[in-house]
């Protein structure tokens, strides 16, 4: 019995992963505050910088962070990209803007979606505000904020991005 031998160059062998995230103390407090509709960070007792999401230690100083700080719903665009590729499993349609945002009161950026904007007009230093889901849908997730939208406020000078207090003013050293 002879069979044509086709080279086997691939078989489907999917791998599915499910993992249990142990948040630890600092992220637990962060995620609990998110469920109550608040963005929080933690201040480093060494360098006074405020981290979001707080991971329980300052990566620059290597010391534990404890002091919790409530952050503003307002933020500044540190930088951004306009993405033309769909994210698998995500309903968002390209092109969409993923921005590095620093909320007022924090000294580090996180990424979030920028929407209700003209893509070509988005710029570094632009002021934006969080748009939250209805309270009934709040969970232990950053997705409680659907996206950020432009705010009619003057741009933040580049040298002050990441240095504003929770009131949106420059922190005096």
């Amino acid at each position, binding site marked *: 019995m002879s069979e044509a031998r086709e*080279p086997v*160059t*691939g078989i489907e*062998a999917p*791998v599915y992963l499910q993992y249990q*995230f142990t*948040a630890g103390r600092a*992220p637990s407090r*962060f*995620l609990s505050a998110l469920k109550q509709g608040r963005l929080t960070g933690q201040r*480093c007792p060494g*360098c006074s*910088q*405020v*981290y979001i*999401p707080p991971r329980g230690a*300052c*990566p*620059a100083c290597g010391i534990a962070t404890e002091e919790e700080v409530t952050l503003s719903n307002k933020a500044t665009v*540190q*930088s*951004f*990209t*306009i*993405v*033309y*590729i769909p*994210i*698998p499993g*995500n309903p*968002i349609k390209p*092109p969409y803007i*993923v*921005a*590095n945002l620093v909320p007022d009161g924090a*000294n*580090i950026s*996180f*990424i*979030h*979606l920028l929407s209700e904007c003209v893509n070509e007009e988005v710029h*570094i230093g632009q002021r934006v505000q969080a748009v939250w889901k209805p309270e009934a849908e709040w969970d*232990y997730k*950053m*997705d409680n*904020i659907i996206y950020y939208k432009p705010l009619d406020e003057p741009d933040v000078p*580049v040298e002050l991005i*990441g240095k504003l207090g929770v009131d949106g003013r420059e922190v005096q050293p």
Partner: protein
Amino acid sequence: MAQLAAVIGTGQTRYKTKRGDVSIAGLLREAAVNALEDAGLGFEDIDAVVIGKAPDMFEGVVMPECYLADALGANGKPMLRVHTAGSVGGSTALVAASHVQSGTFKRVLTVTYEKQSESNAMWALSTPQPFAVHLNAGAGGYFAPIIREYMRRSKAPWDVGIKVAVKDRLHGARNPLAHLHKPDITMKEVEESMMLWDPLRLLEACPSSDGACAMVIAAEDAVDSSAKPPAWIRGGAMRSEPTMYAGREEVNPRAGRDCAADVYAQAGIRDPRRDLDVAEIYVPFSWYEPMWLENLGFAEEGQGWRLTMEGATSLDEGGDIPWNPSGGVLSSNPIGASGMIRFAEAARQVRGDAGAHQVEGAKLAMGHAYGGGAQFFSMWIVGADKP
């Protein structure tokens, strides 16, 4: 005092989108056999094997170092796997080198690889995190905002990235192993390619490749087996830093500057542009050439793009400091191997073994790799002359 070590053999596979003719083990063995042949040795001459690759998720195969031992002739010998994200090809070479420099082993085989066609590296890099929104869109999505900030600061012309994309593909057209062969590529073609992560276009990004790269590193008294001259390791350094901390310099990371200062000091390099003959630098996205020209001290801060635009890094334009004559990561990107290809290509240059992309008379060369959020760096300097 560390002992002298040298590269006495390099071996690579042809890089392409899918190597359907070989398994992962077959791919690595191909590169390893090529390197051994180049070194004039057999598997029986090797004392230890050091391998490296990027995250296991990229192929869905977990712990490849365990099942690859026999394919790499490591049965009964020490075998070790290294992982430092995209810089792993470089750090694996440095771990292999230190196995020799420490005096522990005489001949070490080191191999790195990626078989991107077996899974989906872009999305394997972009898994959801519990404390962030799931908007990460591959390495390009991560680096595009950093590139945008570089463009703002340096006031570089908008088409610097396009120039790099063309230059490295013209280099790649000289290299028979390169994944992309585009001898007729133009600035216009790159400009008109699809925007993926504004400001990065498709042709300003690296391809997804299958491939492996291997080297044999030997002690001073064991370099004579090869018909070609050895590439003496004149310096090697690694640095790391956290992905994120307040005030982190993301455009010009400190870990990169510190790593370069360390490796230059070891090799006695004061001015890298003047002292080096050629450099193979990890540039997976076009704009990282001007950014790394500054980070590595080839240009003043804010001035890197001028070298690119003047043709200083181009072989075809007769530049004084060619970067990536092999075509670089922009022409071939088997991720885990990409760093080692830079290191091996630097060695090939000083051995006079680089064929159509040889830099005439190259005596001193740099290999460089970076990974993670531009937070892991590995670099080496190799020379034709024994230190």
